[in-house]
């Protein structure tokens, strides 16, 4: 069935609501409006305002009350309207949601999914294009996921909600309107690729590109252009940012000997640094060149007219590929 990324998420949320009466959606404007990106479209109409809850406008309140509901056996799915709005909820997420299982020696679970539209590329105003994933990947107790395709959006949101661990679920907002043919029946049957596994989405032999979320499509474009120029690039979609599937990356690097990591977030102390360090440790004797990173600059997210320079594009990725191939 042809669906958009947002539509696939909507279907995933609908199935989760159908499957488990303890699943409850909560957030700002998710009811009659269906969310500002329409991801929860029609769900309140079909499941009622006790299952799809319009909350007061307060992010700490959304996550903090979700935490209390989880203590009573619910599985809340919170929507944070935009990436830059999650910071007021940061304490609730890192101090309570992330730590309760450890704090209570496993006696209390917090099966909360926190959906956050993230990243840029849609010409938005300040606080609407950020990539805060490193804060959350750095926090033990949280899982961090980000799908890059409609099929993954469907299967990964369902896996996230089913998990007994809290999940920060980043949705690359510039992919909301991407369309694809999704085989929901097959995904329902086999559950899809486990969310903690990376996927090799283009095979190649000369260099490996690791990407996630909004930059996967960019990396695939770069690989296509490189192919036309005679270079064979392997592209890996991480899917899970905590944990990271280093095995899949290491296998690829053992084959290609070269690694470029790309993400929208600022490079300094970003996930690319972690991947570079771990892969250098694991694949030191396979690497033909230093691991390179192509990311956002170490600046606040810039105004819309500047974001095209800030976001990694195929040209910047290919420039890094050229450097690694030349080494």
């Amino acid at each position, binding site marked *: 069935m042809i669906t958009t990324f947002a539509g696939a998420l909507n279907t995933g949320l609908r199935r989760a609501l159908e499957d488990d009466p303890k699943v409850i959606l909560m957030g700002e404007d998710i009811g009659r409006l269906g969310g500002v990106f329409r991801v929860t479209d029609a769900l309140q109409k079909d499941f009622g305002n006790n299952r799809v809850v319009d909350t007061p406008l307060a992010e*700490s309140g959304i996550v903090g009350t979700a935490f209390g509901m989880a203590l009573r056996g619910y599985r809340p799915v919170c929507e944070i309207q935009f990436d830059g709005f999650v910071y007021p909820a940061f304490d609730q997420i890192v101090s309570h949601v992330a730590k309760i299982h450890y704090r209570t020696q496993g006696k209390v679970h917090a099966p909360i999914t926190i959906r956050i539209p993230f990243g840029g590329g849609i010409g938005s105003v300040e606080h609407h294009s950020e990539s805060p994933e490193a804060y959350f990947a750095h926090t033990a107790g949280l899982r961090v996921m980000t799908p890059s395709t409609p099929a993954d959006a469907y299967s990964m949101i369902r896996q996230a909600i089913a998990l007994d661990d809290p999940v920060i679920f980043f949705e690359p907002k510039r992919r909301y309107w991407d369309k694809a043919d999704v085989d929901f029946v097959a995904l329902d049957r086999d559950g899809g690729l486990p969310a903690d596994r990376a996927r090799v989405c283009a095979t190649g032999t000369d260099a490996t590109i690791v990407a996630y979320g909004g930059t996967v499509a960019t990396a695939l474009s770069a690989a296509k252009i490189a192919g036309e120029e005679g270079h064979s690039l392997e592209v890996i979609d991480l899917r899970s940012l905590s944990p990271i599937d280093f095995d899949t990356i290491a296998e690829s690097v053992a084959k290609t000997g070269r690694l470029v990591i790309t993400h929208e977030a600022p490079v300094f102390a970003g996930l690319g640094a972690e991947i570079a360090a771990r892969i250098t440790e694991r694949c030191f004797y396979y690497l033909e060149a230093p691991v390179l990173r192509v990311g956002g600059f170490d600046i606040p997210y810039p105004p819309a007219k500047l974001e095209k320079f800030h976001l990694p594009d195929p040209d910047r990725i290919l420039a890094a590929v050229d450097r690694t191939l030349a080494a």
Partner: protein
Amino acid sequence: MPDKVEYPVQLVQPDGRRVLDREHAALVADVGPELLRKMYEDMVVTRRIDTEATALQRQGQLGLWAPLLGQEATQVGSAHALYPDDYVFCSYREAAVAYCRGVNPSEITRLWRGVAHSCWDPSAVNMTNPNIIVGSQGLHATGYAYAAHLDGAEIATIAYFGDGASSQGDIAEALGFASSWSAPVVFLCQNNHWAISEPVRVQSQTPIVRRAYGYGIPGVQVDGNDALAVLAVTRQAVARARSGGGPSFIEAITYRMGPHTTADDPTRYRSSAETEQWARRDPIDRLRRLLERESLFDSSFQRSVADRADEVARQVRTSTIEMPDPGPMDLFEHVYAAPHALITEERRAYAEYLAGDPSEAAARPEGVPS
């Protein structure tokens, strides 16, 4: 609940005489000798737990302790208004509430000894573990109360927090959510006058309870050193919650007679005159005077209370000292509910390191891909 900001509810005067308050006395009209004596015993026992834990900290057996000295009436009085199926969200000073909820005294010091981040099993007593981040539990309680409401459960959820926490945004957000959702939650602010070194006037220039009115939540101020009055107003709030009446706010005016924690030195920021003034309003003395006036306090009762306090103190001391230290591999337990590759890898590598594997590779992630 009426606005009684200027006149906190009081049912027992400091000298033990009853106060004529038709509305609130009616709420505790059924409280006879047995319950009065039980509350007195619980206050004495929890003061003894507090004294014992403070001593254990001084002796190096606990890393820290947050004394509740002076707040026994607020905690014991309110706890006796709750039913077993009600749910308590606490801060970190509610050892007396925990004791009244049926927490085994031998579990009360576990967090403070540093062997775990928690003390008891929350589901066993319907009470969360000490919450160190002040104010966040107001939201947790509101969410729990809302969930209980969705379940159709006729219970109350209560959140304990202090005057300092009342300044936190989470308490404000909790009041907003509770009001918006008509959540069956009771906010109980223990205004003990001091947030570490900051007097309550730094937190608020108006009575804290007035904040609730702005959210459309009824509130009441109560003499927090009067266990009977606290019992009365908490019963009222709990009944309101259980019957679908929505949230309530109680500001209990009490005093933290000891330090904020065992690491604190209150002589640096408050006068001995102030402390002495509040000592004269000691909540335990007050209830004892009431019992004496009503011929409910005799030597055999006094003896039985002292015996119970001794027994519990011995239990706290013994269990604290005998708590085994966790082992190094416990570091990695329960970070996640389901296996997580990073934790699995670090656990394996550290186990090999501890086993004394001489190869350098053992402490590193697996060498090369297979």
